């Protein structure tokens, strides 16, 4: 997120005008601040927001420490992603008051529901000045890739370039270090594959991990973050767990609008997919009766909870078992496809060909 003044001013003014016009809730505003067709920003829970419509889903944590993204969307969507990021960051990092439905000494409900509490009002020059010229935003500092898929890493280069890594003064200029762009993280397998496939170096992760789980080296925006390795879609999949917000970003391990994209030739497998989905189910806690509680941002599709993940996992197991039975009966791949083992799910998840093929190959390898 480059802190270009013109963009900042534009975004800030737009936001301020919108708020002044009376649309005052952050959630509602965040959901309606799309500047590109199809892009939507929705609050998920706690610090985490979803930016959808730029390729793979992007999870956003923005606040005191700056901005962290899980995935970067498609390359051609980067400008739209950045516009939306700046608007969201302005709202979250530079809130101004009164964000209340009623300001005055006799508001119903008393303090906390809009009652006048002093410490600022619209008549203050300082407040008005802040509204019309909010301070600089904290920088984009990290992008975590959930796989090497271009739907998730395509925007790495252009979005990363607008950010900043605090390297320390002895590494780069300035007290905190600046000018080197945000830091891109991924599992080691992602970097290996990008190098092997001669992907543009600007899209590569600069930092990798190769352990089953990597704990972020400190709180970011007030919470711990865990990177959890899985070999589901590829052998370099990462789930990101925001521990306080209680949000898991799964990448393509879960995609509620399509069948799992299992790349067998890149280390993905059907069993790895089932295992990873079970892992999500292990981590997630329902608020009540298999609903709410831990929210899950899938690689594609809507925000999910434990009930949705269970339904998806069950679908994967049903299809796996059906294809396994066909293989046991000696059926070839064309025969399996002709038997339509996904018929009861195609309406929800779309074309099954690649999925059936991947499951067949994955089970045949074993």
């Amino acid at each position, binding site marked *: 997120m480059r802190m270009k003044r013109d963009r900042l001013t534009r975004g800030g003014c737009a936001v301020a005008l919108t708020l002044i016009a009376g649309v005052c809730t952050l959630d509602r505003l965040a959901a309606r601040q799309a500047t590109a067709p199809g892009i939507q920003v929705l609050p998920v829970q706690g610090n985490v927001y979803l930016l959808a419509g730029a390729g793979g889903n992007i999870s956003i944590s923005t606040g005191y420490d700056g901005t962290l993204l899980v995935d970067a969307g498609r390359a051609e969507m980067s400008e739209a992603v950045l516009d939306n990021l700046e608007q969201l960051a302005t709202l979250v990092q530079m809130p101004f008051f009164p964000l209340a439905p009623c300001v005055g000494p006799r508001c119903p409900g008393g303090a906390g529901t809009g009652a006048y509490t002093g410490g600022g009002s619209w008549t203050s020059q300082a407040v008005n000045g802040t509204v019309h010229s909010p301070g600089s935003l904290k920088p984009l500092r990290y992008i975590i890739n959930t796989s090497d898929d271009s739907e998730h890493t395509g925007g790495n280069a252009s979005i990363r370039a607008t950010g900043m890594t605090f390297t320390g003064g002895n590494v780069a200029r300035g007290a905190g270090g600046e000018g080197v762009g945000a830091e891109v993280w991924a599992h080691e397998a992602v970097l290996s594959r990008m190098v092997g496939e001669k992907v543009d170096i600007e899209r590569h992760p600069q930092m990798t991990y190769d352990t089953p789980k990597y704990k972020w080296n400190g709180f970011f925006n007030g919470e711990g973050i865990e990177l959890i390795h899985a070999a589901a879609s590829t052998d370099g999949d990462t789930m990101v767990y925001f521990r306080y917000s209680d949000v898991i970003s799964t990448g393509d391990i879960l995609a509620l609008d399509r069948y799992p994209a299992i790349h067998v030739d890149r280390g993905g497998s059907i069993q790895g997919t089932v295992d990873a989905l079970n892992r999500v189910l292990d981590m997630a806690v329902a608020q009540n009766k*298999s609903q709410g509680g831990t929210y899950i941002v899938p690689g594609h599709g*809507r925000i999910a909870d434990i*009930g*949705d993940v269970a339904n998806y996992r*069950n679908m994967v197991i049903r299809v796996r*078992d059906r294809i396994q*039975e066909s293989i046991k009966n000696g059926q070839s791949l064309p025969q399996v496809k002709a038997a339509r083992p996904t*018929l*009861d*799910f195609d309406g929800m998840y779309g074309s099954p060909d690649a999925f059936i093929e991947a499951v067949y190959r994955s089970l045949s390898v074993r």
Partner: protein
Amino acid sequence: MQSVTRTSVVAATCLLAAAFIAVPVFSQQAAQSGRRIGSTQRIAVGDAIKGGDMNISTGSTDFAGEWVVYDEEERELGNFTGIPHSEAGRMRAETHDASEWSIPEFQCRPHPLLAQWRASGAVRIRKDVDPVNRSVTAYRVTFIRGLDDRVIYLDGRPHPSEYAPHTWYGFSTGTFKGNTLIITTTHLKEGYFDWNGNSVSDKAKVTEWWVRHGNFLTVTLMHEDPIYLSEPFMQSISYLLDTHTEVEYFPCTVITEITSGRFPHHLPGKNPYLREYAEDNGIPYEAARGGAETMYPDFRLKIRAAGRTE
């Protein structure tokens, strides 16, 4: 002087008459302009009393109270008669294994909306009231085996984004048409509408008509599902107002019931129990399998003719 007085009286009378004529006109304009505030439609309170199309309830019928189910119906395994299954819906139902209730995520799963109304028990309906104009802005429904609140918004708000979470009861908005409350629900989770495998996809839409006749509440449900149904499916159920009932707390504890790690389901064509219902009740198996044509009287003639041929 007299003529001046006369003129004044005539003028005053004319002005008064004009004022009387004008007041309703201005009132009407105010009411009309009151229909649009922001992007959602609102109406003046008076319009709700008259009935007709409206986007906000002012309570032309009061549904609040504790209600107990008056009639109920459960379907046996293999009884899909009269259900307009699509090909996908039939496959889903016929591969269903009731043991799926034993996985941890489903043990405390509430009945999804369509099944919930038809589950035995009680329901509590409460009102949210706008503190300023006292209009009813929402109904909150608590089912005995369900989540705490199913909210039906009556304030004209739109349904949420396609990326918003889906829930067991979905997202509901309602409008009054006369004394009938018409509710539209989207954003449902994938679930079921009967206990025997009849499934609901996450693309389903439900329309409800709530009608109150004295102490009876009749809920008619139209269930449209582009995935699992080939035609809309209508059901209705009645509840009786019971002033001596309180909806009880419904606890649920998850225990380990499956240790194999598998998900219970039948492979296509391998469910051994599907014919039981048809055989026990002397119904042709083809009819028990359901499908849109089994909803219509002509199907009897077809089955009868097929029986004669056999």
